[in-house]
């Protein structure tokens, strides 16, 4: 076990010692070991690299490192070779030998390089890949450089220097002032200024105070907090300790989802290592400041991300929001002043302390400073975690970083902010992304989910999806949220099923208004946002469903029929064989046709029909043409 560091100087000495043992020119093979790449088998790939380096007798010439999430999850397993930062994508265990050989001979292995889908060109250096090139990874960037299970990697990069600076040279008030001055706003959803929250906790009288990390990330499609917690746990921890110092708390908690096992594991290791080095616990770095941290694993309730619900859960009670007219900053866990911030907010704090509030304020827009990590998912070419300076436009994120819409389809909307957010249409794509601009559009920043939707997405169905999600994730305590959601769910389901009634849209608006006004917590008051924003920007789609029984995106099953165009069908038997309902008739040489009585609108025929025939068409809102007379043969014009 290492000696506990008893001063800022000792930390610097340790850092120098770690660096002196490292050769920055020595090749390092970094294998992304975040949960995304893990599902692609990064554990196996990592072991293959270790074995291969050993087998080729290169152990003292090449380092192999399992790192935090790199963010380009779609291309997993992602492997980067330092110092040149050559990026290999979709790496499998059988590729290890060749990669190691290439590294040993200072060569680039062409076949595993990233191919730009736009230009078709191969790109060797990670920094040149458009997905990375257009990002500013000040918070997330360290992930690829460190093994999250080794505190020494974090220290080597300057880790805990902000804590050492604060404890040795700054008063708690000075730390608070710096955070206030930076105008860092909460990255978890609300965008409330972190410094103001800290100050309220600090100024509330009391000997016992708490600082808590909210890692109860639960928005569908969002996973930046997971990747940061599992990929760079010490950055979150350092921010938390700094907060404790500033507000006068000596106990911290990290509330982390049970569904994030790697985050839980890496956090526990991080806590233990920080404690061993004297960066946590009693008399941190010899400063006299004590701070302990416990982890609390969430039992999978989305609503527990709400501050008062989260604190109830930490106390061992049901995770339900309470009346919050007295802030949790004043009366939180066990009635004590408690500061709660999100993972990303805490991870940003050490940077602010090190580089100063002015540096932080130089990034971003007038009211939203710094960067924000988004999880860019859905129908874009490049999906993954992207960190951008506030103020970048949605179009830049989706097209420059995301590489545009998948399969050359048309963009339709982008959902931001998860179930509390909304859907933003094409005409607002040039909006600079910041807290206030997104709220003005009827959406919100939320924790940073960004789900891109193409022309095949039905906006009524999207609204129904989020309402469904919340019907199961609301706590059910207050009537406007619980019963409002239930009614919205019934109405939206009816509309999707072609059973919408005149007046439904008025009822939706009436219910939504009361939910906004009267719900107990923010989950309820924002729950109608996905419905209201789609109603605002895509009202015609709702009306088509209700009045014309037509789904413009041809997505809603009850309103969509499938039909085989007899002039295009080549009787290839593929749809006939694949139809799970046995609804496709015809045979060898006979034009296929769909028995509408049997058809379940599953869409398999549409998906399997070879693109060169393109014979299956979707029909909505119009009658399906009658099938050709029984036994009509294919006339093979092309062969004639």
């Amino acid at each position, binding site marked *: 076990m290492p000696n506990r560091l008893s001063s800022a100087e000792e930390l610097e000495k340790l850092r120098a010692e770690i660096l002196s043992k490292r050769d920055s020119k020595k090749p390092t093979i970094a294998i992304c070991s975040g949960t995304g790449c893990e599902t692609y088998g990064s554990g196996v790939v990592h072991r293959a690299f270790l074995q291969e380096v050993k087998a080729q007798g290169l152990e003292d010439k090449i380092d192999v490192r399992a790192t935090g999430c790199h963010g380009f999850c779609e291309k997993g397993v992602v492997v980067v070779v330092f110092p040149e930062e050559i990026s290999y994508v979709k790496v499998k265990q059988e590729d290890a030998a060749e990669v190691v050989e290439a590294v040993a001979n200072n060569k680039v292995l062409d076949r595993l390089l990233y191919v730009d889908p736009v230009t078709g060109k191969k790109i060797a250096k990670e920094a040149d890949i458009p997905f990375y090139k257009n990002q500013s990874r000040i918070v997330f960037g360290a992930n690829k450089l460190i093994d999250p299970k080794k505190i020494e990697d974090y220290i080597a990069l300057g880790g805990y220097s902000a804590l050492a600076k604060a404890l040795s040279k700054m008063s708690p008030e000075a730390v608070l002032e710096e955070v206030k001055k930076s105008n860092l706003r909460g990255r978890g959803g609300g965008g409330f200024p972190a410094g103001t929250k800290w100050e309220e906790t600090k100024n509330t009288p009391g000997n016992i105070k708490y600082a808590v990390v909210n890692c109860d990330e639960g928005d569908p499609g969002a996973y930046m907090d997971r990747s940061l917690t599992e990929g760079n746990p010490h950055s979150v921890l350092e921010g938390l300790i700094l907060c404790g110092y500033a507000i006068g708390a000596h106990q911290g908690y990290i509330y982390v989802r049970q569904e994030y096992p790697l985050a839980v594991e890496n956090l526990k290791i991080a806590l233990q290592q920080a404690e061993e080095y004297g960066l946590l616990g009693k008399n941190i770095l010899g400063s006299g400041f004590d701070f302990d941290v416990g982890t609390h694993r969430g039992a999978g*309730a989305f*609503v527990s991300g709400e501050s008062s619900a989260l604190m109830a859960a930490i106390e061992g009670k*049901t995770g339900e929001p*309470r*009346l919050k*007219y*007295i802030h949790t900053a004043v009366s939180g866990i066990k009635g004590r002043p408690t500061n709660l911030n999100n993972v990303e907010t805490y991870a940003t704090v050490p940077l602010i302390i090190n580089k100063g509030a002015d540096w932080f304020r130089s990034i971003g827009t007038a009211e939203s400073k710094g960067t924000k990590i988004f999880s860019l998912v859905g129908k874009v070419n490049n999906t993954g975690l992207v960190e951008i300076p506030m103020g970048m436009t949605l179009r830049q994120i989706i097209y420059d970083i995301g590489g545009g819409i998948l399969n050359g389809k048309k963009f339709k909307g982008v959902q931001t902010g998860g179930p509390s957010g909304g859907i933003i249409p094409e005409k607002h794509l040039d909006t600079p992304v910041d807290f206030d601009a997104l709220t003005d559009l009827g959406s919100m920043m939320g924790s940073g989910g960004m789900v891109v939707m193409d022309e095949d997405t039905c906006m009524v169905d999207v609204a129904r999806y989020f309402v469904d999600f*919340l*019907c*199961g*994730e*609301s*706590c*059910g*305590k*207050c*009537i*406007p949220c*619980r*019963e*409002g*959601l*239930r*009614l919205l*769910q*019934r*109405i939206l389901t*009816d509309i999707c099923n072609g059973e919408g009634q005149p007046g439904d849209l008025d009822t939706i608006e*009436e*219910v939504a*208004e*009361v939910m906004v*006004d*009267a*719900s*107990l917590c923010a989950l309820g008051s924002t729950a109608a946002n996905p419905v209201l924003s789609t109603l605002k920007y895509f009202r015609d789609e709702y009306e088509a469903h209700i009045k014309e029984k037509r789904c413009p995106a041809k997505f809603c099953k009850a309103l969509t029929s499938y039909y085989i165009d007899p002039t295009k069908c080549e009787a290839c038997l593929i749809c006939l064989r694949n139809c799970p309902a046995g609804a496709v008739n015809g045979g060898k040489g006979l034009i296929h046709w769909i028995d509408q009585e049997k058809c379940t609108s599953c869409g398999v025929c549409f998906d399997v029909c070879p693109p060169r025939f393109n014979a299956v068409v979707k029909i909505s809102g119009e009658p399906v043409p009658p099938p050709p007379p029984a036994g009509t043969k294919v006339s093979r014009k092309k062969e004639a």
Partner: protein
Amino acid sequence: MEEMVNLQIDGKQVKARPGATVLEAAREAGIKIPTLCVHEKLAPYGACRICSVEAEKNGKVKVVASCGYPVEEGLVVRTNTPRLKKIRKLVLELVGPQATFEGQVGGELRKLADENGADINRFAARLAVKSQRCILCGLCVRYCDEVIGSPAIGFVGRGIERRVVFYPDKARKVFAAGMEWATEVCPTGKIGAESDGTYFGFTIDDFLAGKL
């Protein structure tokens, strides 16, 4: 003596002790705010939102639950605006279908529905919920826990699946000592009507077995 807090409720100047809620201050001043899930012996809960009022501070108006909102110097409260009437009416209409018994509601709920012009069956067909005769106000749950001191009744499930259930062994003991209180706190009359005085049909075991 403590310094009193001055506020205005429906145009009337009201003095309240610090720490009091707006609802308490209003009641003391003889101003009636309708409530449903409030009970004098229980901590404010804020589930029904019937007691919503408009609170104006520094020119900003927001809707708050008066049962839990603390009085503040200079606060301006309005208890019966069109916005609030709309909330009360819709809340009652939303919760109505599951509160009915044979298409009707009784007790406190009936009174509130009449006072607020709420059509209890407005969404009955659309919501198509089982008539539970329960609006999940939590009065029985909270009274049992906070006053009786034995949590024999509890909530299970989340969101629209939320239910009240009894924990059979505990509940038998609690109710053996008299169950008038439970009949009394229930605003829909469910407990009085559905219990034989010693036992309830809807237990945690039924919930776990998927019968509820």
